[in-house]
């Protein structure tokens, strides 16, 4: 009775991505599948935290990190074959994956315990540790960005390089500022009005808008590279950075996005 239970017809694209970045592909699937027990908990839990379903945050972080590592795995296709499977790269990726899993485990564990994950100062040393894990997992975009920069042979490489480096730099600036405050809101929330799906405040400044934009530079700038024109890549990079800082300043002034 050893008949296979694996009924996924694996496409050649997935095989190619897996060959280029086996660790990142593996963790992407793992994180995506881990949303299942979270959805089950969501269906069976009645608790809320700061006015939202308590499991919404773990769900969002799983989806966001799956998109993040999944994108990096796809981008690995543009690296010379075997780049990400050398000993040094595998070791580094293991550290990054450890940081990602630790972050997700605590965010989900905090939800189970009914407490805050970020901005939780009741357990000494925990919040700085989360910051360390966050910077570690974001650093992979910088390291891959620098690798593309050194390759620098095509417009696509340029777009990937700038996008990934911007993701790291902008995210560290925005998320770093956010983590040094007391929460993601600037100003007082009264009614709790939110933008659907994203959950950003419509009454107070919400630093998560700029965090979202900062982190998605890795998608916006490479998209511009598909035009094949280097000036377009640079132009989009500058404009995108400006928009991100605009949203950042807007939130710091205590103004909602819309």
């Amino acid at each position, binding site marked *: *009775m050893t*008949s296979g239970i694996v009924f996924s017809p694996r496409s050649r694209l997935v095989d190619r991505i897996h060959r280029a970045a086996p660790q990142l592909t593996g963790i992407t699937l793992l994180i995506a599948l881990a949303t299942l027990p*979270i959805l089950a908990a969501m269906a*069976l839990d009645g608790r809320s935290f700061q006015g939202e379903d308590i*499991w919404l945050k773990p769900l969002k972080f799983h989806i966001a990190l799956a998109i993040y590592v999944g994108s990096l795995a796809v981008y690995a296709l543009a690296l010379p074959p075997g780049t990400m499977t050398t000993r040094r790269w595998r070791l580094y990726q293991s550290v990054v994956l450890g940081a990602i899993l630790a972050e997700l485990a605590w965010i989900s564990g905090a*939800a189970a315990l009914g407490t805050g994950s970020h901005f939780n100062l009741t357990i000494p040393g925990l919040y700085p540790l989360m910051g360390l894990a966050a910077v570690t997992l974001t650093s992979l975009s910088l390291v891959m960005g620098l690798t593309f920069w050194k390759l620098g042979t095509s417009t696509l490489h340029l777009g990937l390089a700038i996008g990934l480096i911007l993701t790291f730099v902008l995210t560290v600036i925005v998320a770093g500022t956010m983590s040094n405050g007391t929460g993601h809101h600037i100003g007082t929330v009264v009614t709790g009005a939110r933008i659907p799906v994203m959950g950003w405040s419509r009454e107070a400044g919400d630093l998560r808008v700029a965090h979202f934009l900062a982190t998605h530079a890795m998608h916006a700038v490479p998209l511009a590279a598909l035009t094949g024109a280097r000036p377009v890549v640079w132009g989009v990079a500058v404009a995108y950075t400006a928009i991100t800082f605009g949203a950042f300043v807007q939130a710091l002034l205590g103004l909602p996005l819309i």
Partner: protein
Amino acid sequence: MTPETLFQIANPLAMLGWLALLASPLAPRVLMPLASVVLPLLLALAYSGLVLAHLAGAEGGFSSLAEVQRLFTQPEIALAGWLHYLAFDLFVGAWATRTAHDEGIPHLFLIPCLVLTFLFGPAGFLAFWLLRTSRMVKKKASA
């Protein structure tokens, strides 16, 4: 979803798994993955959701029998415990079925062990091992 609703859904699911095991020689390629993987995973998913959602806020604990009893006075935790039985008993039943098939143990001998596992989990597991061991000894003796 209320614990009562989930209970009403989980029981027929487990029952379906046990019927699949009993009937497995008829269509092993469909029934075995159903009983050994799909249904235990569904139960495991519901169990995990319950534990994630309700264990931290529950009264009681694991440090003494009285604490454990207190834990199970809460419907959500009692349901989680019940799902634990259902999922693992079915999984053990599927393991026994597969092992019996691999080792050429006739399905007719397996059926009482499955019934025991369904009703009294570990007792069925024990019965299956007794059956297996006796056959091994017999095989050695005749070799």
